[in-house]
């Protein structure tokens, strides 16, 4: 063992004090039989800096009979509990459980507190460091629970201990709980999946098509094979929601009498409108363009996001009672002050439409990228067969170039940095390259001149040197590299910014904080989306719209319950492992793709593929089981655990509290356990199945505590050990027994019920039968 500092505190207070100064880097040592194993194997990435010996604390080893409970000090040895006449007479279940732990020598050393606080017994988790290096599992900050696809003979058959945070959901700007809705899709429950989705993102049909997928690169499955095709599932789900819009975009049950005006009908506006309307607000959305949908409808090309999808989305929202006033420009057709007066709140989500000036000579010859995308039909006749320069490297530039190609023109993208620095989505750039769009990198136009009916672009070559204020490589001109090119048209797409002029007066623009943020200005004005944060992605703008909703709703209602807390559904914690490859979405060959301007280039995927894909979701969590026999017994006896910080029912301490969270704080010590005295007619039984009777941890154990009165079972607690991440009460079996006489047949039915929700993995289905047998015998033998 590596050395460490060592403390022999005399009191609980002293022990806690030392532990807290080490901030999690000191471990208490009660008996040592668990801790020393971990230290010898060096199986955990962090080796403790100090060991705090609890055995020197006096007064924590006792068994006392109080009026209505039995108190046992946490440092009481298991052999003392197993050997106590009083414990055996009053709570034989606990004595039996203590007797079943390990070996006589270990019971002479191990304490009840230590037994309750021991670490999981997963052999991946505990793999010794000196044999080729420790295994980094999910519990140790890795990405995979090795037991899921590996050896899971000794693991849970009742799902996982869930993670506190899921990397996919954390990656998503809207924090969409992806594993949660995937688990419903696995079960074919589209409605439930949709309900979860809508809590985070009410426009999944749109994001399912244009999202640059922040989630997929974070998917843990990538370290097994390939990440889950999350966007593909999201798109399917989104289409289903729109298809059944009467179910998912329902009018609120009650109007709340308040009203909100939303300026802009892009993703931020639509999202805010949905959540506000759902809460009973009357919502009016103002859109300056002819068609609602902001950039979604008006500038994103149809091959990426078909117009009918956006239309259906708007229709669904309209049917909720949201009013859209299109062709009304705030500041021109209606004053902002007027909206401010007329509505309880105004949400400005007008996007980022103002195109930045390049500041070059002859800039007036260039067409703006956004207006080209909006009115390309008008140019269709002129542009066919022409050579067109597209200036810029963002999504608008690439959209313009790919659209031009589909209109029969020859686009050439000029960008002053290299491909690696392009702000456009990589996927889009790749497709543009495949389709034959020409890119001139490190090229900066300096002037546009009209020469013989053509446009002459004077350019200079650039090189990258150092970093600019945004942290990107700074392009600097290469001396003497000036050259000219001839084009028929020049389209500029060099970035956009919000049209701040909408806001009159003094409110200034330095508000940008984070892409998904929303902010309150003076009075009842709120801003969000690209209007507040500058150009971002659809999901970021949508998340900002939801943030705006929360802000507005709180502001109008006053500070009461939070929106997200509405989540009531219990997260399913089942895990399945299927070794199937990621769904392959057929891609139309580039030469075919460029023939179609309006049709969607990514085809639909059918339900079978979607369900299979959802099954690939690992629903990440840890499959290890809590090894404590005493915990199983204590929960069956409805005992309490008294620590230096709290007094809780054992059942509440052993909950699926999430990976990483442990039962106790690093500076918390168990002081005592208390077991209520059993009522008359108490029937107690502890049964444990191991591969080798002494020493081994349970494959399965059952602690059953029944109360029989006048021949009928009046109270039942049945606790399964080593079958789930923490001891699991078989509540269905308990309910069955209440009010009935106990006989063999009812014990059999109860046993089947106790295991009915088991979802065994590849190698541990055998635990189901063992569990059933133990439950049956614990009730009737």
């Amino acid at each position, binding site marked *: *063992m590596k050395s460490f500092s060592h403390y022999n505190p005399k009191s609980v207070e002293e022990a806690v004090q030392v532990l807290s100064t080490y901030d999690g880097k000191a471990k208490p040592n009660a008996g040592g039989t668990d801790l020393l194993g971990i230290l010898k194997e060096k199986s955990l990435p962090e080796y403790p800096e100090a060991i705090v010996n609890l055995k020197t604390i006096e007064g924590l080893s006792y068994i006392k009979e109080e009026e209505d409970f039995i108190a046992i000090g946490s440092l009481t040895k298991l052999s003392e509990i197993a050997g106590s006449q009083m414990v055996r007479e009053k709570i034989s279940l606990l004595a039996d459980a203590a007797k079943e732990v390990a070996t*006589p*020598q*270990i019971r002479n*050393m191990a304490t009840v507190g230590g037994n309750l606080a021991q670490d999981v017994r997963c052999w991946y988790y505990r793999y010794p460091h000196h044999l080729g290096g420790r295994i980094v599992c999910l519990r140790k900050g890795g990405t995979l629970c090795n037991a899921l696809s590996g050896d899971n003979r000794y693991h849970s058959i009742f799902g996982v201990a869930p993670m506190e945070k899921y990397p996919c959901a954390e990656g998503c700007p809207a924090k969409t709980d992806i594993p949660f809705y995937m688990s419903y899709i696995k079960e074919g429950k589209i409605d439930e999946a949709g309900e979860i989705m809508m809590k985070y993102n009410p426009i999944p049909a749109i994001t399912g098509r244009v999202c640059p997928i922040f989630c997929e690169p974070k998917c843990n499955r990538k370290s097994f094979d390939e990440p889950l095709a999350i966007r593909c599932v999201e798109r399917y789900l989104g289409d289903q929601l729109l298809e059944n819009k009467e179910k998912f975009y329902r009018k609120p049950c009650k109007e709340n009498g308040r009203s909100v005006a939303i300026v802009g009908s892009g993703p931020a506006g639509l999202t805010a409108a949905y959540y506000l309307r759902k809460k009973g607000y009357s919502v009016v959305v103002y859109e300056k363009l002819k068609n609602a949908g902001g950039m979604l409808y008006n500038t994103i090309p149809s091959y990426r996001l078909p117009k009918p999808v956006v239309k259906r989305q708007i229709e669904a929202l309209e049917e909720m009672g949201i009013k859209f006033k299109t062709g009304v420009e705030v500041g021109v057709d209606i004053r902002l002050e007027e909206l401010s007066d007329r509505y309880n709140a105004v949400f400005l989500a007008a996007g980022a439409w103002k195109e930045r000036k390049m500041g070059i000579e002859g800039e007036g010859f260039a067409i703006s990228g956004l207006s080209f995308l909006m009115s390309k039909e008008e140019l269709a006749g002129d542009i066919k067969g022409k050579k067109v320069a597209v200036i810029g490297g963002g999504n608008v530039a690439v959209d313009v170039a790919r659209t031009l190609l589909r209109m029969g023109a020859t686009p050439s993208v000029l960008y002053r940095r290299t491909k690696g620095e392009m702000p456009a989505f990589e996927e889009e750039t790749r497709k543009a390259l495949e389709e034959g769009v020409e890119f001139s990198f490190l090229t900066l136009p300096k002037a546009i001149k009209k020469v013989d009916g053509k446009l002459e672009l004077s350019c200079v070559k650039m090189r990258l040197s150092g970093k600019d204020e945004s942290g990107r490589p700074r392009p600097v001109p290469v001396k003497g590299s000036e050259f000219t090119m001839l084009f028929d048209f020049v389209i500029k797409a060099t970035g956009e910014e919000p049209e701040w002029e909408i806001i009159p007066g003094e409110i200034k623009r330095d508000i940008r904080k984070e892409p998904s943020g929303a902010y309150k200005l003076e009075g009842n004005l709120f801003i969000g989306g690209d209007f507040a944060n500058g150009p971002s992605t659809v999901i970021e703008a949508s998340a900002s719209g939801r943030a705006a909703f929360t802000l507005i709703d709180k502001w109008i209602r006053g500070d009461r319950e939070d929106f997200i807390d509405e989540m009531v559904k219990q997260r399913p914690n089942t895990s399945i492992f299927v070794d199937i490859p990621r769904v392959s979405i057929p891609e139309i060959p580039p030469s075919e793709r460029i023939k179609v301007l309006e049709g969607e280039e990514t085809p639909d995927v059918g339900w079978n593929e979607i369900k299979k894909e959802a099954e690939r979701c690992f629903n990440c969590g840890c499959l290890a089981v809590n090894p404590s026999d005493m915990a199983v017994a204590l929960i069956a006896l409805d005992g309490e655990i008294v620590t230096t910080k709290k007094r809780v029912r054992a059942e509440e301490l052993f909950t699926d509290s999430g990976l990483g969270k442990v039962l106790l704080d690093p500076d918390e010590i168990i002081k005592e356990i208390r077991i209520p005295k059993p009522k008359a007619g108490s029937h107690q039984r502890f049964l444990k199945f191991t591969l080798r009777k*002494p020493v081994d941890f349970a494959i399965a154990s059952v602690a059953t505590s029944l109360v029989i009165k006048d021949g009928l079972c009046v109270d039942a607690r049945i606790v399964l050990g080593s079958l789930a991440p923490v001891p699991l009460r078989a509540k269905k079996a308990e309910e069955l027994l209440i009010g009935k006489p106990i006989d063999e047949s009812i014990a059999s039915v109860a046993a089947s019920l106790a295991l009915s929700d088991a979802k065994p993995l590849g190698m541990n289905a055998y635990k189901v039968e063992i569990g059933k047998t133990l439950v049956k015998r614990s009730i009737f033998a």
Partner: protein
Amino acid sequence: MEKKRKEGVRSGKKKKIKLSVNGIGYELEIGDKPGEVDYGHTLAHTLRETLNLTGTKVACDHGACGCCTVLMDGKAVLSCMTLTVECDGKNITTIEGLKDNKTGALDPIQQAFIEHSAFQCGYCTPGIIMSAKALLMENPSPSKEEIKEALSGNFCRCISNYQAIDAVITASNRGR
């Protein structure tokens, strides 16, 4: 804390632990030099490497086999899962401490093990005998079941378990 410890060493105020092994008192200094006890040393290590009492065996070193069993204040415990620094003030008995110091006679259990040939390679024997000793000290006339239970934490790969149980029965009968 590391720093504090080293300063302690330099200023000559070395921490010590006192323990009694087989009736002999030892005062061991804590440190990382030969003959000293490191914080990371197990009792099994100290017995074998520092005190040269190699009768106590280490097989699995993980508390699973029982070979390292010694008596601590009369109870059978695993010396491989015990930190020496946590044994201050304890009375330890190892296999070397069983014989009668005056006469040199073996403990009745040891004698019975020889008579019953209750071992082949003998590596697990000291641990089994210490477990048996703890049992007979507490319960001089155990039933066969009680003996099996008391020895259940000791593993023998040569399958001498049956002879070991018989030997303990013999020893307990002699004690009567």
